[in-house]
């Protein structure tokens, strides 16, 4: 049984048909990437999974359970954490408070402390800056913070929306290294990216999305050599 199973979902913004039957699966322990150009519907897919946008058709199952009846805020407790697009940190709270908010639904104080240490080991920059107001962090640090905060919920599935957005290439590389590290510790990750080159280099499998539909699905290594992907997303002729 796949950990996450999205089956033929249709989502709408008013009468804009944003997702036209999207299906995808994520197995336990995988990094699966969803790539595609601007406006393809990647963020919409994540919003539909988390229930912020309710799909009008189709199902989303997490560990076999249909997510449709759950309100979006119930998802964290179920084991799904989101790193929102554009970093979405609480910019007026400090780094430590942001991380604290990540563990909002948990009450196991001792375990939270353990996880905080783990996040600090993984992302040492956050430890240095723990009492700094998050809005004053650099873009890369903010992305680390959003990631660390999502981990504080101790999820089993991590949904990441364009962690590379607006970052310099060096930083993108270090963020992606962290993603691999997180995955190697056992985290399952669904990674939405425009930066197909980077995403495919770390993912196990990939889905290619265009105007609300999945047009390709294969192992990441195969997608890297796929002519169409190379032309459209990797800028190769």
């Amino acid at each position, binding site marked *: 049984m796949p950990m996450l199973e999205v089956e033929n979902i249709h989502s709408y913004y008013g009468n804009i048909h944003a997702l036209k039957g999207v299906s995808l699966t994520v197995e336990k322990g995988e990094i699966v990437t969803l790539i595609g150009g601007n406006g393809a519907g990647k963020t919409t897919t994540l919003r539909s999974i988390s229930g912020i946008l309710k799909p009008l058709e189709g199902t989303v199952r997490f560990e076999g359970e249909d997510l449709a009846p759950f309100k979006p805020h119930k998802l964290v407790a179920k084991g799904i954490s989101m790193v929102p697009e554009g970093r979405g940190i609480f910019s007026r709270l*400090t780094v430590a408070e942001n991380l604290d908010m990540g563990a909002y639904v948990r009450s196991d104080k001792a375990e939270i402390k353990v996880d905080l240490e783990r996040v600090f080991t993984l992302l040492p920059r956050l430890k240095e800056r723990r009492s700094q*107001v998050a809005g004053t962090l650099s873009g890369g640090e903010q992305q680390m913070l959003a990631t660390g905060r999502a981990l504080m*919920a101790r999820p089993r599935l991590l949904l990441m929306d364009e962690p590379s957005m607006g970052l*310099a290439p060096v930083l993108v590389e270090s963020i992606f290294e962290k993603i691999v590290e997180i995955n190697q510790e056992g985290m399952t990750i669904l990674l939405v990216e425009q*930066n197909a080159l980077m995403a495919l280099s770390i993912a196990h499998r990939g889905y290619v999305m265009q105007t609300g539909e999945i047009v390709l699905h294969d192992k990441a290594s195969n997608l890297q050599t796929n002519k169409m992907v190379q032309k459209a997303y990797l800028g190769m002729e």
Partner: protein
Amino acid sequence: MTNKSTLKQLFSAGLINGGIIIFLGLVGMIETFSQRDIVSGLVSMGFILLFLPFFVFGYSIAKKEPDQSLRTVLFAGGLTGLVAGFTTALLPILGQFVNIRDMFMNASPTLYSILNFNQGIYLGGLILMIVSGIIGALGAGFLLIPPRLRNAFLQAVVWTVLLGLMRDLLIVMIARWGAISYIFRWIFASSGLTITGALVIFFLVGVVYYWRSGKKQDLPVKKILSKKQKNIRFGKLVAAVILMLLLPQILGIYFSEILDNVGIYILMGLGLNIVIGFAGLLDLGYVAFFAIGAYVVGVLTSPEMGVIQITFWQALPFALLASVTAGVILGLPVLKMRGDYLAIVTLGFGEIIRLLSLSDWLRPYLGGTQGIQRIARPFIGSLELKTQGQLYYLIVAAILIAGFIAWRLKDSHMGRSWMAMREDEDVAQAMGINLVATKLSAFATGAFFAGLAGAIFAAKLSSAYPQSMNLMVSINVLCLIIVGGMGSIPGVFVGALVLMGSPELLREFSEFRYLVYGALLVVMMLVRPEGLWPEARRKLELHESMEPDALPNDIPTVTENPAG
């Protein structure tokens, strides 16, 4: 020396300064305030209002001078003052030829003669210019005095002026003290302070402050308190509490009345601070819950309303319940709204409640324009709380409870979800926060505090009128939160004391209340946007002082790089 661009600055500062004084004159403040003596026969409040701007402008223009030598500083201040005085002197001259009074009824001969030192427009204008130049230079020179002396001087002036302003009230208060009162009598003249009184206060405060500010410097860092210091601290706290409990006895009826009103605003401020400061929901109809609290107590306790007649304490839970319910009812339709839309809808809600209380339709139940009279006062045992002094204790008790609740809520799970929601609703939801519950709880808690304030208010006046439930109440509460510091609990107390207390102390003031509020808010936003007693976080955010070399060099700079 002074180059062309600084000259230009001096002139424009002088013009602005003159403009301000002309404005203060035309709205009538200078004339009204000149009837209020600070030092009997010598200095009036109008006099201070007229000359203080020259001083302040002289000071701040000198502060901007790159060259801080005595000569340039005095020159800058003096010139600014001169220009300002010249600008001001134009008003009476203009008034001679044009009838300004048609437009500005405060452009009276009295105002002109104040501006002209009673010497006619030309000679008077000249004197004004000379005086303003000198004051401007003095203001500039003030900058060069050592800070410790400067602060002591400022404190001394502020205290002298305050005591002079409050003379009428202080006299009444002192009269209650029996024999000791004679020690203080000689300080006060028939209006304002006597000259000796003013001098004594000035030097006393100045010397004490100077001496204390010198002592403070060699105090150790505050963080770690020795046992002795802790004891001292505890002692101070006990003393403060005792003083607070004795206040009505010491101060008398008039002050108690003011304290009661301030207290009711503190209660409301604590509530609105939760809604706006903690949860970030801009609620402009806050008075509605106050009205509901007051009216429920009214309807249930007044014999006029014929429904039932119960005691204040029996009615209070119903009043609170009604306000909280109203809070939830208001919250439901606005769940999806943010910022300005929320503000407009809540504003409308406040008006609806007021209009309902005013309506003929509900007159049999709410009394229409006449409101409700003969509302029951609270009893404690067989003692009816009815004087200002007695009600003071009820209000203090309510504030203590409300303050404690607010303080505990702030760091609670709920407090954190309010804060997260204020920052970003979508992300808060992604953290597992139930937005519906969080929003409704903020509205409900805020409404609870306002309902409590309203209930006490109704019992205090023993009546409830639609007129006292108007929009200005909401605006006042909002202003006091902003002035005190958004999201700060001590800020609510400070804001309420400053905004609600001071106009009561200065009756001439109340005419210009909203003018002063407006000016105060603008100045606050420029000088101290975080409020008078800000929350630690806001201070961090608005005045973060990160030295550039504290940043490690190995962080690559972030550039916009739309990957694709």
